[in-house]
């Protein structure tokens, strides 16, 4: 192990991979006898998990954690914005359909 090995980054990576593989389990739970069915719970869960991953990537990998307050606030706001936009459109679309 090199002296510069960063334990924190490793754990971040592990968490991200963990969330990613959890999708396999979600998918397994949601598929009944091989036929995919529509599910609002899965959709919302998938989007929220993805946004959590995005925030982790921004905080840790992109080093927003140590950045000026403005960037922290802005990126957090952006994650919320993306989430609200996507879920909002999804819910609205569902209602219209």
């Amino acid at each position, binding site marked *: 192990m*090199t002296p*510069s090995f*960063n334990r924190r*980054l*490793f754990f*971040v*990576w592990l968490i*991200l*991979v963990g969330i*990613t*593989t959890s*999708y*396999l389990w*979600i*998918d397994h739970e*949601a598929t009944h006898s091989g*036929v*995919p*069915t*529509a*599910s609002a719970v*899965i*959709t919302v869960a*998938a*989007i929220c*998990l*993805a*946004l959590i*991953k*995005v925030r982790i*990537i*921004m905080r*840790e*990998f*992109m*080093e*927003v954690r*140590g*950045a*000026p307050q403005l*960037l922290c606030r*802005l*990126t957090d706001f*952006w994650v919320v*914005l*993306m989430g609200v*936009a*996507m879920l909002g*459109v*999804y819910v*609205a*679309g*569902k209602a*219209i*359909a």
Partner: protein
Amino acid sequence: MPGQPDMWVFVLFESLVFTSYFCVYLYSRTQHEASFLRSQAHLLLWLGVLDTVVLLTSSWAVARCVQHARTGWYEQARRDAWVAAGLGFVFLVLKIFEWVRLIHFGHTFTSSQFFQYFFFLTAIHFVHLLIGFVVIGVLILQLKDPKRRRQETVETCATYWHTVDFFWVLIFALLYVVR
């Protein structure tokens, strides 16, 4: 601030553009749910998971690269950058394999609504990745030449690469998992 603030303008602006694509996709999905689900069943989820893990690992390498460069371990940093580019290349190959497989089964850009969005989103992400190779190339050149080396540029390049990564994280969830 990690890297040029200017790059963050790009990240935020391009995130908005992508969010708008995602919204269009999600809306269209809710209107034709059955058809989307039928087409979606032809995707291999494990391939999408593999893609994501490859890209996340590549991102991890770039994050290490930035830290190594900061502490003056330029040799290590360069190796990290090569690893990131290599994993990016693996992603590229996986993507092409996936496209060829789908086209082979008759699922093309024009075959159904879902695949229209699938090919569009994966292709526009692919273009971002190709630009990413140029960015990693700049990063490696910077690390090589002591006269050019600037931590700010290293961080700017890394920020771009992570952006490509998190766009994929969203695209993956929306195309492969959403029901």
